[in-house]
């Protein structure tokens, strides 16, 4: 379970400071899916980064399975990002000069796992791109790249999958396919899915959603969500 309690994030100091999040609170059940909606600058990416252990909130707390995330030691936060969280980025962030296999094994490499290939092939199989394993990622299409990105996110079997505009750079047909994959993972593996998007059509497919404006929750919906 994710419990967010009055988190705020202020960038800068003095009159030039900017409040990206303003006392945001909500609870999300384990295995649920959540869409974070809002316009540019509404604070949705900041919220996701705070939940993912990437950006420390200025105040408030985030508890993951009852344990406060940001009061942990840095090495525990690193371990959380590596073992409990998975990331899907809009811009993929793949190493273009490396193969699909090398790219997706990075989380396990960081974890210190020696026998990584069986898990890597299993992840590629799930994403239906096993035949691309030896290809350099620069030779892949946008949709394939995003699937590689998802494979990298799930290879370590994370509890929570964070996706920041996962279909933002894809055409509608490919977007649909990627969305299917994400929901399938959420359903089949019980992975909690947190997606940041400004695409309302995509948001409608989620069981839970929150809408942010100027760093505040202005609307929320869903049975597994309590704001």
């Amino acid at each position, binding site marked *: 379970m994710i419990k967010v309690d009055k988190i705020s994030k202020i960038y800068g100091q003095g009159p030039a400071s900017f409040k990206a999040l303003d006392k945001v609170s909500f609870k999300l059940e384990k295995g649920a899916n959540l869409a974070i909606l809002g316009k540019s600058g509404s604070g949705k990416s900041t919220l996701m980064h705070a939940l993912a252990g990437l950006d420390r909130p200025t105040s408030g707390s985030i508890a993951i399975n009852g344990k406060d995330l940001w009061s942990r030691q*840095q090495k525990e936060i690193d371990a959380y990002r*590596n073992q409990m969280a998975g*990331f899907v980025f809009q811009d993929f*962030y793949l190493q273009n000069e490396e193969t699909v296999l090398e790219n997706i094994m990075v*989380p396990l*490499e960081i974890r*210190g796992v020696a026998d990584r290939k069986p898990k890597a092939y299993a992840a590629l199989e799930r994403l239906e791109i096993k035949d691309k394993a030896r290809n350099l990622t620069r030779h892949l299409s946008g949709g394939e790249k995003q699937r590689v990105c998802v494979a990298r996110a799930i290879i370590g079997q994370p509890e929570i999958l964070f996706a920041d505009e996962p279909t933002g750079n894809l055409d509608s047909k490919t977007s649909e396919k990627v969305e299917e994959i994400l929901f399938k993972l959420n359903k089949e593996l019980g992975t909690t899915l947190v997606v940041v998007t400004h695409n309302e059509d995509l948001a409608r497919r989620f069981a839970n959603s929150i809408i942010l404006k100027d760093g505040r929750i202005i609307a929320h919906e869903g049975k597994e969500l309590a704001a």
Partner: protein
Amino acid sequence: MRNIDLLRRGLRNLRRNKSRTILTVLALSIGAFTLVLTFGLSNALKASVNDQLSLATNNELSVGLNAENKNQTGVPEYNTNAAAAQSTQIHGERATIQFMTKEQIDAFAKISGVKQVWPSYNISAEYLQLDGNDKKYIIDYVSEQSYSDQTSKMLAGAYPLNWSTNDIVLYQSYADTLGIAPSDLIGKTVIIGFLDVKGKIAEQKFTISGILKKPTGFESAGPATTGVVMISIDSMAKIYDLQFNGARDFNQFSYATVLLDSPDNETSVRDAIAALNKNYSVSSLSDIVSRIKTVLNTVTYALAGFSGIVLLAAAFGIINTQLMSVFERTKEIGLLKALGMPNKKIRNLFSVEAVLIGLFGASVGIIFAFGVEIFVNTVFRQRLINIGFGSHAILISPTNVLLVAAGLGLLSFIAGVFPARKAQRLDPIQALREE
């Protein structure tokens, strides 16, 4: 992340920037090459010096007497008794030494630890004649017996370990000139002719004990290398007496040789000689060896210093390469951090890459140095042996290799610290957003 994965990732990253990595590695390899070659040359020189000096006796001291006014400048005033002093100009400075009397020299024999003492019998001989042969040959230099075993230098016969007044050892050039096989000369009688104190020819007979090989190495640079004969000290004394007894400078010697019981006694004997007269100047083979080694070491360190400067410049190359790498890979660093790679491992990754560049540079430099060593030693081998230098002009030791590799590894690590820390400090979100 396991260390092996860190190493693999480092290697992959270096391969990705091949041109830049190769250029930095080449810069480092030039320094490593120069450094290893410098050590190799120095080793060969030291080995050659040691080889050649190992045959020389190391338990002899040479004692001279400095004049009181040894630092005098200008031309000294003539003095009828000045025959007792010898004034020479060395490198623009006048150094005057005092002749020693036989009595002064004999006093050294009483010092504990001294086996034998003899003065410098500066005798000259006119000719050498093989008994029964009409031809006479010039003698360039009459050398006194050596107390060190010269057996390894013998071409034929044996080096006399217990010299008698009858023994003589000739240089190879006499055998060559006479056209007789060296072994056939052994046991033959030769006549040495010299001028006595009245200027008349006197002759002395000797039996050939052995023939010495043509001198090589440092000895070949000596004043006389062809017409040289070696006789016992007692024979030298006898001829000296015939040549100088009655002359003004008779029994006045420029230096004396002190033979020690053991090289261990050198310090105590030196002290005892100094106690007799503070103007005695004592020198030994160890002084020469130590002077040669000091010069060699100084040259080695100077050359190593130049190589060090090259390496220092190359170290800035590493800093530059790694800094560029950090800038270029900002997004990758952000991703690794986002995926949970600890800051320490990020720093280690860049340090590993820097050390790898250093080790590659060291390896290339060392391989080239070995190549040059093999080439030079093979091509010039015979020439080196002929001049008595030894069989190697370059001798690279495993210690040199380890030292250079470890040094370069360390230097690269230090050079990589700043870029590695820069990478470590990057904020993951900002790094991912970097354009």
